[in-house]
């Protein structure tokens, strides 16, 4: 006999996990299904990790509403979840007469959007704030509320809090078929069939494919690729604020920013692509990014590159987010959440909960007392585990054995080295694993082997009886079978 959920969220990116958290905390019985081996394996894997005020978002858009609500909730809950905030502020820098002229419109849009603390900076003020900036910078617009956050710990904390409130997360669970039985959704996955009253499609880069399971999609995902170059840590002290370009008609342009891990990065590019996973970088573009960064911040020429990566944003043909409830189909669509998703995720969750209340049933007025699930801090500027001792295994990022072992266990253990990296920073530093990769993976695999982990769906009740053998099959075997 299979268990019945109130809500099934499809997709464990930052948006899906924030939605899962919101419903679980409201006391609903929830499950989230993830196609990848671990959470955050799609669009949420690679972004610029900024907390935006929404100063440059389209006025009156749903995107703006969700960003500002998400921004406020993040600041409200972050200490209880031990999530970091690097208060950098941002500067929209103008490098030509044309760009200087455009600052006024940007400033007035910011005020329209309720971001009232923006301030124009003269060339002198710009130089005082950012002495390392190239002399060709002409003027700027200061946006004090823009900050840097941890792109992976935040969604991990949302997931863990959802789990603490009784939610289930099932990975390696791509939906292969969906149908309705007495009104309830039946979602078939390689891990078994899940039944739920209402489905939330937060499938990101595969949003249109998942939408097609229920009806003709009103949108098409056109992935937009962004490549990034990350400089070594000495670069971080060359810049205080996030440096934003004046956007052109065509693109928002590349941003130069500090990361929460103590580096400095430039990106993203905006390239149309057919890739939906495993975004690729290319040397010519990376070289251009590096050159552009040096042009803006000349002292970067002596700093080596620590990492390169590419992310994919699930853009659609619509300018705004596509968030809709389909009442007859017990279905909520959450699509087209582009680069602002990290900021807006908590706000999107609030909005989706409202849609649910309006169309599918009342949420309890009085929420159960929240259980807080603080996550280990990975931010460079705050207290980290190595400071109390322990054995350092990753020497560039100062990651301890204890952190690696902890990440391989618990209610949502890392399932691959990518997941381990996102939970600990191990091998993310300047040597990119030259010294420690062998040691890190041996340590990780040892804990995994000892804890006898199987698939996430370790509860027989969830599955129809004839499928009960399948979740006992180790992940590796399941993979092998799929590959064949």
């Amino acid at each position, binding site marked *: 006999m299979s268990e019945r959920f109130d809500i099934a969220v499809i997709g464990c990116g930052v948006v899906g996990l924030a939605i899962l958290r919101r419903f679980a905390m409201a006391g609903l019985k929830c499950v989230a299904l993830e196609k990848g081996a671990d959470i955050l394996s799609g669009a949420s894997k690679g972004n610029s990790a900024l907390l935006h005020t929404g100063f440059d978002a389209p006025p009156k858009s749903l995107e703006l509403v969700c960003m500002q609500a998400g921004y406020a909730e993040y600041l409200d809950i972050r200490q209880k979840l031990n999530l970091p905030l690097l208060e950098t502020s941002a500067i929209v820098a103008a490098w030509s007469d044309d760009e200087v002229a455009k600052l006024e419109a940007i400033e007035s849009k910011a005020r329209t959007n309720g971001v009232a603390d923006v301030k124009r900076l003269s060339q002198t003020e710009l130089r005082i704030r950012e002495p390392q900036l190239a002399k060709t910078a002409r003027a700027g617009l200061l946006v004090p509320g823009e900050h840097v956050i941890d792109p992976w710990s935040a969604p991990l904390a949302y997931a863990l809090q959802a789990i603490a409130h009784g939610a289930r997360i099932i990975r390696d669970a791509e939906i292969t078929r969906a149908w309705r039985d007495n009104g309830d959704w039946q979602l078939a996955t390689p891990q078994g069939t899940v039944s739920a009253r209402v489905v939330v499609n937060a499938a990101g880069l595969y949003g249109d494919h998942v939408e097609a399971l229920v009806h003709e999609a009103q949108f098409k995902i056109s992935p937009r690729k962004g490549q990034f170059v990350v400089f070594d840590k000495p670069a971080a002290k060359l810049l205080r604020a996030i440096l934003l370009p004046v956007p052109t008609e065509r693109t928002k342009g590349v941003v130069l920013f500090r990361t929460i891990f103590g580096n400095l990065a430039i990106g993203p590019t905006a390239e149309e692509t057919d890739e939906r996973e*495993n975004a690729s*970088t290319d*040397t010519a573009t990376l070289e251009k990014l590096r050159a552009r960064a040096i042009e803006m911040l000349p002292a970067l020429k002596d700093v080596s*590159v620590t990492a390169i990566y590419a992310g994919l944003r699930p853009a659609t043909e619509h300018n705004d987010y596509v968030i809709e409830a389909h009442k007859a189909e017990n279905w909520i669509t959450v699509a087209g959440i582009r680069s602002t998703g990290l900021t807006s995720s908590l706000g999107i969750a609030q909005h989706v909960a409202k849609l649910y209340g309006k169309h599918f049933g009342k949420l309890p007025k009085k929420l159960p007392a929240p259980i807080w699930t603080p996550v280990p801090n990975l931010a460079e500027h705050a207290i980290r585990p190595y*400071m109390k001792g322990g054995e350092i295994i990753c020497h560039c990022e*100062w990651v301890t054995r204890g952190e690696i072992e902890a990440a391989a266990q618990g209610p949502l253990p890392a399932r691959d*080295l990518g997941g381990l990296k996102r939970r600990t920073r191990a091998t993310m530093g300047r*040597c990119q694993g030259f010294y420690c990769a*062998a040691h890190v993976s041996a340590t990780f695999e040892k804990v995994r082997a000892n804890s006898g982990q199987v698939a996430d769906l370790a509860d027989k009740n969830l599955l129809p009886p004839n499928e009960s053998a399948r979740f006992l099959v180790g992940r590796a075997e399941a993979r092998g079978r799929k590959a064949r």
Partner: protein
Amino acid sequence: MEHHDVIIIGGGPSGLATALALSQAGVKDVVVLERETEAGGIPRHCGHKGFAPYKNFGLMTGPNLARFLRDQTKTLDIRTSTTVLEFTLRGNLRVHSAQGIVEMSAGKIVLATGTRESSRAARLIGGNRIKGVMNTGELQQRVYLNGEKPFKRPVIVGSEWVSYSTLLTCRQLQVNPVMMLGEESEHAAPGYFTFGAQLLGTKVVKGAKLAAIRGRHSVEAVEIEQNGKRRTVECDAVVLTGRFRSESALYASGFLEREGHAPKMTEQFETSRPNIFAVGNVLGHLETAGRCMLQGRELARVLCA
């Protein structure tokens, strides 16, 4: 605060040889700080022959040389699993160990942190970010320390000494690399090495560049560029060898003046700061373990003078 006459950062061939020579010269209070769980440095995972103490070449394997060094320095104060996090503004050291973080000071500090190969990122090699791309350092640790066999048909990139050392590691695994991509290098090994590689059955392609790495979950192919043309070569791993860079973590933030990618040095091993010295491969050129030991001995002489 803990104070010593000399603190040596790094327990590889140059650091250990410096410590040994100092103690033989009668300097009592010398401490070596080594972040790995055992001293010996890079030779610990170079399982092939070619090493000798204080000599350029010999018939010892790397692990044997590392063991020799540990034996010789057995009675010295060598602290393993101890990481120097950074220099403080005053030039003291912030030091991490299992017990926590302490500050240490010394009359003289020797930087012997060695060198490492440039990563894929530092080389800006595009393509997919997947498993199966490694430096020689990672490969040798996987093979000689963990006993793994990480691939069946790798492509080796590079034409330096270490590139051929990678080839030897592959031979020990009974793996025949698909090809060696002989990128141009200022530190290229002599031409007859190419001939040797070909005798072993590995195709050496010169004047080509690795343009991209492709695959879904792990490496499936590489794209190489030669005479303006691209072609795809199937393989299951990429070993990026050579292009050694001074391990600069402790001084790159501007603590020491630099020259290129290494600290600025005098003939007497002095850095831009008084009483801070550097020795061995941290100086930015790749030398054999034996030569690093000779340098350590030389530095000890300078320090005692």
